[in-house]
Structures are given as C-alpha cells and as structure tokens.
C-alpha cells in the first residue's frame, strides 16, 4: 500500500440495506455468502404478476414504520425503503444527529434513478378513471427523486448539504462518491449517502422488457434467472431496494470512538458519451473510471483484492466490464463477483448496496460469490468467485456501477483507518 488515509479521510461507520434478501446489511451479506437468492416469481396480487416472470422483491414496509402518521400519505415505496435503510445505518453507526454531531456538519445525499414512478403511475391511472380531482396534492412530495434525501433530513434533523443524483443505475454510487468528496473537502463531518429504487410497477417493467434488457425464459427457475458472466445469461432481473451508508471523517469517528468497516479511499467517474443504453464495447469508459479511483486513492492495481462488479448479466455489459478490468489490471486481475446474481438489479439502489457489501467483504475477509455462474462465458474469463464464498483478506476493493446514459462510477474502499474497526 502506498497510501494511508489521514484524519481527514472518509471512513464508513454505518450500513443499512433493504433488499430482496431482507432488511439489514449483515444479514444480507451472510445470505449472499451462502448463495441465497432473493429472486422469485411475483406472487398473485403483486403489481408485476403477469408482467414479468421473475423479480427481486424487498420486504413489505408501511409508511407508519418510518414516518409519523400525518407525514406518510402517498409516500412512495422508494422513499420508505430509503428511510428504513437510513434509520438502520445511523443506528448501526451509533450516531444521533444533534447529540453526536452538529446538524449543520451533516449532509445527506440519497439518490434514485427515477423516484416514485409507481405512485405516479397509480395517480395517472386514477386521473384517467376518475377525472382531474383524483390527483392528490401529495403526489409530488411523495414521488420526487429528491424526497428520500429530504425526508431523511427532516426525520433526523440534518441541516447541511443535501442532494440527490439521478444517474440511473449509477445513482447510488454517485451519491457515495459525492459523500467522499464532501468529507475530503471539509464540507461535512458525516454524510448519510446511498440510493433507492422501487421500479416494480408494470409500466417500468414492461419498458425494460421491451428494451430487451431483462432476463427471460426463467419462469420455471426464477433463482437461476440472474447469471452474470455465465454463458447462458440473457439480461438482468429487475429488483427494488435501498442502501445507505454513514460516511464519516476519520478524525470525527475517532473522537467519538466509532468503529469503521472500511475507508472510502477513492472514486472515479467518467462518461461513455457513446449511446443512450449501450456501453462502449471496449469498456473504455469503465476502465477510465477504475483508473480514476486508483489514482485518487494513491493505490496501485495490485493493492486491489476484490471487485464487486456492475455485472448485470446483459450480453454487452458483462463483456465490456471484463475488457475494462483486463485493461486496468492486466493478467493479475483481482477476484471478482456480481452480487446482482442474488439481489437482482436495484438500479439506483444498487451502487450503495454493493458499496456496503464491499465494505463488509473487507471487514470480514470474505468475498461473496456470483450465483449461477455455472459456465463462464469465454469472453468474460476472470478470477471469478463462484460456487461458494471465498475466505480472503483484501486490503482494497472496487465497486463498479455503470448506467443507462453512459455514466460510470467506481468506488475504491480499503481497510478502515479509524482506531476502532468493525
């Protein structure tokens, strides 16, 4: 290692995830390491019943579980899941805003690709059926993409920087990268960051299906549908959920005796400037993103022991990412896996959930596998963790997120430099 984080570096002290594998980052990580899939056929009565034959469905959540009764009206599921993940991440960090940190020194950046489209769809249908007065004034504060961040701020009294970054499937990763920046530039001592998505409505699902992006033909075996890097892969599995991380200045964490999972040491962000929905076939945008994260962190490629791949299981995407990894790491590419094989693709939520998974991989010394990777596509040959989890201590890990629109983000995490470690 050529670089150590300083007092001014960023350390992850709290994790919250709400995914098809359940609520709780540690539980989700354990499930992933045991090869447990969260994918299933939408049950009778689910909005997607009849639209797609497999999805990643997160647990039920009621507004009253995360909001006071009078504030929960028409709040979309994406925001409710984000609130749950944020509550859990702050509790995990043992941090109460106002008690442990000046509210003006806390930021919140929680993103979403599209915000509350399910709620919008319901209201649009109600308007078509019942007329203009069916549209509620609560629609906008219930569904806008900034409202997860805003409601987390209101609930926890966060008074510093707040925003949401709507970069589709890179939205969660962009939020985490931005958090690292705010810490690095002294704009905040604590950043609550992450992403959430609730795309399981028929209109969104059909749009992805008609774009030929979704895995198909796996109705008889839904758990086999998401198979990144596998020869038989044919698309991603649409999923919902949220991930939130508490990122803290190392000096701040040490001063209050908080333990870190991992440092957020570097980030890289680039743009393909190529096509709206296809990556550059040579993976050049992704490669530059990973190189950017390495440069920012001061690490060398050989310091990286694990890559949590974007790996959605689309034909083009997996090959482009493989090329990018080879371009950056040469013949000594680190171990790689795609946990989307078990969570499905949480779109704007995925980057944050996978950053949390990467942090746990570093702190636990265990790398979760790619499920369903039975026969590696010859164009995707890498050091795949597959079959079962691999016990391996790693100093640093990269988490990749690439999006419709050509947005690429790579986050680089390393062993925690806070005095106490998780």
């Amino acid at each position, binding site marked *: 290692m050529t670089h150590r984080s300083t007092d001014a570096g960023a350390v992850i002290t709290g994790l919250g995830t709400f995914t098809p594998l359940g609520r709780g980052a540690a539980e989700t990580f354990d499930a992933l390491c045991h090869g447990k899939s969260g994918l299933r056929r939408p049950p009778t009565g689910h909005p997607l019943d009849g639209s797609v034959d497999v999805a990643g469905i997160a647990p039920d959540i009621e507004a*009253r579980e995360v909001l006071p*009764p*009078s504030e*929960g*009206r028409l709040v979309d599921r994406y925001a409710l899941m984000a609130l749950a993940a944020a509550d859990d991440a702050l509790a995990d960090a043992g941090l109460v805003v106002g008690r442990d940190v000046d509210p003006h020194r806390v930021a919140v950046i929680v993103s979403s690709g599209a915000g509350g489209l399910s709620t919008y769809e319901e209201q649009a249908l109600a308007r078509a059926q*019942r*007329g203009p*007065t*069916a*549209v*509620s*004034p*609560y629609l906008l*504060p219930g569904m806008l993409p900034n409202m997860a961040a805003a409601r987390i701020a209101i609930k926890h009294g966060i008074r510093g920087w707040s925003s949401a970054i709507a970069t589709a499937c890179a939205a969660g990763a962009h939020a985490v990268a931005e958090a690292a920046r705010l810490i690095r530039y002294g704009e905040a001592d604590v950043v609550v960051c992450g992403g959430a998505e609730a795309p399981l409505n028929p209109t969104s699902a059909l749009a992805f299906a008609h774009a030929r992006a979704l895995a198909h033909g796996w109705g008889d075996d839904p758990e086999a549908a998401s198979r990144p890097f596998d020869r038989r892969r044919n698309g991603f599995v649409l999923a919902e959920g949220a991930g939130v991380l508490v990122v803290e200045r190392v000096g701040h964490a040490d001063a209050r005796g908080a333990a870190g999972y991992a440092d957020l040491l570097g980030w890289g962000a680039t743009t393909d400037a190529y096509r709206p929905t296809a990556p550059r076939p040579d993976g050049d945008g992704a490669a530059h993103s990973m190189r950017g994260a390495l440069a920012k962190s001061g690490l060398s490629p050989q310091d990286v022991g694990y890559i949590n791949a974007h790996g959605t299981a689309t034909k083009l995407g997996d090959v482009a990412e493989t090329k990018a990894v080879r371009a950056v790491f040469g013949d000594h590419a680190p171990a790689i896996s795609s946990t989307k094989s078990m969570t499905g693709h949480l779109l704007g939520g995925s980057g944050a959930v996978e950053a949390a998974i990467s942090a746990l991989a570093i702190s636990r010394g265990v790398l979760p596998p790619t499920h369903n990777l039975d026969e590696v596509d010859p164009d995707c040959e890498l050091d795949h963790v597959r079959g079962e989890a691999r016990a391996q201590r790693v100093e640093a890990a990269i988490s990749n997120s690439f999006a419709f629109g050509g947005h690429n983000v790579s986050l680089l995490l390393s062993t925690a430099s806070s005095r106490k470690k998780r």
Partner: protein
Amino acid sequence: MSAEVEKFIIEALQNMNYDVSDVTGETPLGPAGLDLESLSVAEIAIQVEDTYGVKFEEDEMETVALLSVSGLVKEIVERASAAATAG
C-alpha cells in the same frame, strides 16, 4: 347536509392519518387545533370539489386554513346550495 359534510371532513382527516378522536366542530384547522399543513388543506379542498362540486380558489386557501371544522362545513354547504340555486 351539514352533518353529512362534517362527517365527510372528519373522515378525510382520518384518512390523512390525523388523530380525530378529540375533533369537534369548534376545532380550528390551523395551528391552535389540527395544525394542518398546506397540502392537507389542499387535499381536503380537492376531495370536497370531487364530492360536492364546490371549488376553493387558490387565493382562498389561506382563509380556509384559518377556519374551524364547522366554519369549513358552513362554507361548503353555502357554496353547494348557491351552486344548486344558480344551476
């Protein structure tokens, strides 16, 4: 009609998750009583329009927010009967 409209208003408040157990006709909609936020007042207005065909204009919303429950009921009933007479 007043009793029916009052019941309608209280049910609408209940659906918005306001605690209506102590609400009477005298309860103010504003800070001294239910403390409705502006969107809740707007939501009630749109439901009243939907059910009774009575419309509150944008510049009336602040005045509406200062009424009591009975005051609002009275407004709705008067406007509904005016509309019926005119119609």
